[in-house]
């Protein structure tokens, strides 16, 4: 029911809308109140008021008012549109879509609503809905090219390639005059069409189309690359080779061109012929790096087999000498991928030694001429230090020797100190690593890279506060939140993750969860960020980049950053759950837990006090600096964090539900990551979702059937099923029986475990896992603790294994703990964790 207003109020209403658009919320609110005084039940005005107060951060009030507006005038598209916007603001996209649709039904002519709806649909990947919306928008304004392109994109994303092409062609056919040659939108749209044809795998047609547009297209590089690609896919090898050569003439540093050229020439197996190609370009471009370096990937030394010569050694010698003479700091980083090959690893090491000897002989031990440059002898020392520090060729004593020699030569060089810190890290001495990295930082206070490294090493040494101070040297610190706030704003994921992991080690699970949640939210923001581009990219005509982005967004959380933070959070939630189960079940442990809880409370109180103090200080500082500014920051609504220390997160009553939230994207996007499947099992078995647990278990078994943790999980699963199978729904039990086949219900688990142990008796992680399993199956406690401590005497035991053993012994509250720690300290005196 329309609610007419007098002309004066009508203009007031228009003013409200304008004020809202200009973010003049106070004025808008005033004007709205004025209308409502005369017409207290005017729905549209109430809706606009709701929208404004929502922007001011009062979401709940806004929703209440929005609902009231709807009851006052339920036939108003404005009210429905506003309701949709409110939902949209809350990220409840499904409800928002419903509200928009209703608004559109009331006012089918509104471009605004149609647009909002369409963008939400593509954001939610509702392709069929998006096609409908885009068709309607095209019908409303067919003269706009972007509407045509947008419909094509809709079909394309929905998987209907031929329809997408048809839409684009239809538009092209309707043009009276051909678009100008500098029309960027046209050039991009035509290229977009070409990629669609190629996606249909009709390469001949794609090639023909490409040839027809090649002359006028503005993206020269894309035309050349696509042409070469189509030619090689069509088997026109000679033409393809010419095309790749043309590309190499443009850019001889692009590795893919070389591999493709070799591929179309069909000389992949012939090392000498391949080398000739690279040599040709190395000669043409004397400063080119790729042509010299890439052959190292495929060249092999054949002297061992025949007497044909050592191609790799010669090529590597040339490259290494050149780089070390020049003093390229990234030389080792450029070559370390070759270390996967044992013989190449050895050759590179001996070449670096040879180089060092020859330099020493010629320089007579005098210091290098120019003070700080990293070429010649120091470059060789730097290379060798990294060589012996690298995990595949590790000899830390030697690494330390070379790095110390380097420091002697160039005491002010950041690189040597940095490498020394890294060597300490590999010794397990996080304290010395952190100190050494900080010394390196002090050598160049303006270098952000070394500053960041120093902070990271401080976090590895569990110095959260110091690290934040270090980071604070390079962040913007004028907001009340200090450096941390800036790191959050800048989405510094690595810092948040490392900080969270350090808090875990420090036992502050509240702050750890806080950080992991921050990372989770950053990924949400990245997903949300695409919203602007649904309209922006179309208007700018950058369709290929847009489609790439949409596809990237669809698998955003496959990034290892996500997995790492999520696994951290899941581990905490699982332990929260286990602790709550323990306190509910066993009385004996309550005492200890009570103590712990009291201590936690005390620590929390102290932390809170400190935080308040810091906040006060920051506010004072800000006020001193600029009185107006601090007021502006404080007045910003909805920005205040009501749980800065993560107490609420740590006090969750549904840890497993939270864990599942973090888990789902890992299982969906990184199913080949075995630690993800292992974590999935831990969550699902606690939730008694046996089918899902089995799904993870089977996936993990398929990835690595001999994985120690997976073995443990197999036994636990069998045990759980044996005791629970009666109470499960029969259909579920049937599936479990048919799909869990590695051990059946008649197997003697102790024997099963013993044979697994026998098979892997020399591998520390397997021994740890089987001893844990033994204990689970009821073996004698003292014996298992002794067995576990025995890991120390295994040949392959590393300090990381010993750290794991120590953690388990602590968890078991074993009497062996201190003895073990002392023994480990004796064996690895440098490791901070045993000190």
């Amino acid at each position, binding site marked *: 029911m329309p609610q007419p207003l007098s002309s004066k109020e009508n203009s007031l209403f228009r003013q409200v809308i304008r004020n809202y658009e200009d973010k003049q919320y106070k004025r808008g609110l005033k004007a709205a109140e004025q209308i409502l005084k005369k017409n207290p039940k005017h729905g549209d005005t109430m809706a606009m008021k709701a929208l404004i107060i929502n922007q001011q951060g009062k979401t709940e009030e806004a929703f209440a008012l929005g609902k009231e507006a709807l009851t006052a005038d339920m036939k108003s598209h404005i009210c429905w549109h506003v309701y949709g916007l409110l939902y949209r603001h809350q990220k409840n996209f499904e409800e928002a879509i419903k509200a928009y649709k209703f608004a559109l039904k009331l006012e089918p*002519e509104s471009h605004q609503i149609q647009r909002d709806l369409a963008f939400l649909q593509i954001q939610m990947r509702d392709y*069929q809905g998006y096609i409908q919306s885009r068709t309607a928008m095209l019908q409303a304004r067919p003269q706009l090219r972007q509407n045509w392109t947008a419909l094509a994109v809709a079909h394309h994303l929905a998987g209907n390639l031929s329809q997408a092409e048809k839409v684009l062609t239809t538009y092209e056919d309707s043009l009276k005059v051909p678009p100008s040659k500098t029309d960027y939108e046209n050039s991009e749209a035509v290229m977009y069409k070409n990629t669609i044809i190629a996606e249909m795998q009709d390469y001949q047609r794609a090639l023909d189309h490409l040839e027809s547009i090649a002359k006028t297209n503005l993206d020269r590089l894309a035309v050349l690359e696509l042409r070469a690609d189509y030619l090689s896919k069509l088997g026109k090898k000679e033409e393809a080779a010419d095309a790749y050569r043309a590309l190499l003439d443009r850019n001889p540093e692009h590795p893919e061109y070389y591999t493709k050229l070799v591929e179309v020439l069909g000389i992949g197996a012939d090392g000498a012929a391949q080398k000739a190609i690279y040599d040709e370009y190395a000669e043409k471009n004397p400063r080119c790096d790729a042509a010299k370096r890439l052959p190292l990937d495929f060249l092999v030394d054949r002297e061992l087999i025949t007497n044909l010569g050592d191609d790799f050694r010669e090529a590597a010698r040339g490259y290494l000498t050149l780089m070390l003479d020049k003093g390229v700091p990234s030389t080792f980083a450029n070559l370390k991928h070759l270390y996967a090959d044992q013989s190449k690893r050895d050759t590179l090491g001996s070449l670096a030694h040879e180089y060092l000897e020859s330099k020493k002989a010629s320089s007579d031990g005098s210091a290098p001429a120019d003070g700080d440059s990293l070429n010649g002898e120091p470059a060789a020392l730097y290379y060798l230090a990294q060589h012996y520090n690298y995990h595949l060729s590790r000899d830390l004593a030697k690494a330390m020797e070379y790095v110390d020699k380097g420091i002697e030569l160039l005491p002010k060089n950041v690189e040597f100190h940095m490498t020394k810190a890294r060597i300490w890290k590999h010794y397990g001495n996080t304290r010395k690593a952190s100190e050494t990295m900080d010394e390196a930082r002090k050598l160049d206070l303006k270098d952000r890279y070394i500053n960041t490294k120093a902070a990271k090493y401080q976090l590895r040494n569990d110095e959260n506060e110091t690290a934040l101070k270090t980071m604070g040297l390079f962040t913007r610190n004028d907001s009340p939140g200090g450096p941390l706030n800036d790191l959050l704003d800048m989405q510094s994921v690595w810092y948040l993750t490392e900080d969270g992991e350090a808090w875990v080690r420090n036992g502050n699970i509240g702050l750890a969860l806080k950080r992991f949640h921050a990372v989770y939210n950053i990924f949400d923001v990245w997903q949300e960020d695409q919203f602007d581009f649904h309209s922006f990219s179309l208007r700018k005509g950058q369709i290929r980049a847009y489609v790439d982005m949409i596809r990237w967004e669809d698998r955003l959380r496959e990034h290892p950053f996500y997995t790492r933070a999520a696994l951290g959070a899941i581990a905490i939630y699982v332990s929260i759950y286990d602790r709550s189960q323990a306190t509910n079940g066993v009385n004996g442990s309550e005492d200890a837990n009570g103590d712990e809880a009291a201590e936690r409370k005390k620590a929390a109180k102290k932390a809170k006090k400190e935080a308040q103090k810091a906040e006060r200080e920051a506010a004072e500082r800000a006020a001193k600096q600029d009185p107006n500014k601090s007021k502006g920051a404080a007045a910003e609504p909805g920005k205040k964090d009501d749980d800065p220390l993560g107490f609420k997160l740590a006090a969750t009553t549904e840890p497993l539900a939270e864990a599942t939230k973090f888990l789902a994207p890992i299982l969906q996007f990184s199913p080949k990551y075995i630690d993800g499947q292992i974590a999935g099992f831990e969550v699902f078995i606690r939730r008694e979702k046996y089918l899902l647990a089995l799904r993870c278990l089977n996936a993990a078994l398929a990835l690595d059937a001999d994985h120690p943790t997976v073995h443990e999980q197999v036994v636990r699963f069998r045990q759980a099923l044996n005791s629970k199978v009666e109470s499960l729904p029969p259909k579920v039990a049937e599936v479990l029986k048919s799909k869990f086949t590695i051990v059946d219900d008649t197997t003697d688990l102790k024997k099963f475990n013993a044979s697994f142990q026998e098979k892997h008796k020399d591998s520390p992680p397997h021994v740890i896992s089987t001893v844990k399993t033994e204990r689970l199956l009821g073996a004698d406690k003292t014996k298992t603790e002794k067995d576990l401590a025995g890991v120390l005497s295994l040949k392959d035991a590393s300090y990381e294994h010993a750290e794991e053993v120590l953690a388990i012994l602590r968890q078991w509250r074993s009497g062996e703990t201190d003895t073990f720690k002392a023994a480990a300290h004796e064996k690895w005196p440098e490791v901070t964790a045993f000190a």
Partner: protein
Amino acid sequence: MAEPQPKNLQEGASGDVEDEVQNTAKSAEDRKAAAAMASLDTRGDDAGSSNAVDQEAVSKAMKSLGGGPSAGAAKDVKKVKVDPADVALLVDELDLSKQKATELLKAHDGDAVRAMEAFIAT
């Protein structure tokens, strides 16, 4: 547009870049300037391209497109009877939404055991 409409929300993620440029403007004049600025790097949205387009051809082209998309969109949904108890079982055991569980069951002719087996095998 007969009536003025609320524009997009202004928080970062909504609306689009040009709107934001306009929204920060303070007065009518500022707004004009902002609009002019925003259109600097767009190649004549309405006016420009409509000249190049043959209106008649466009409307004809529109017709040729009509009906196409919706026909292509129709999926062949199998008519399978699904036991609500099985749907509930799948929802509970496999953490699925009701809709997904129903689809999964339908894809396996309503056989809950086979549906669950297939699900955990992927």
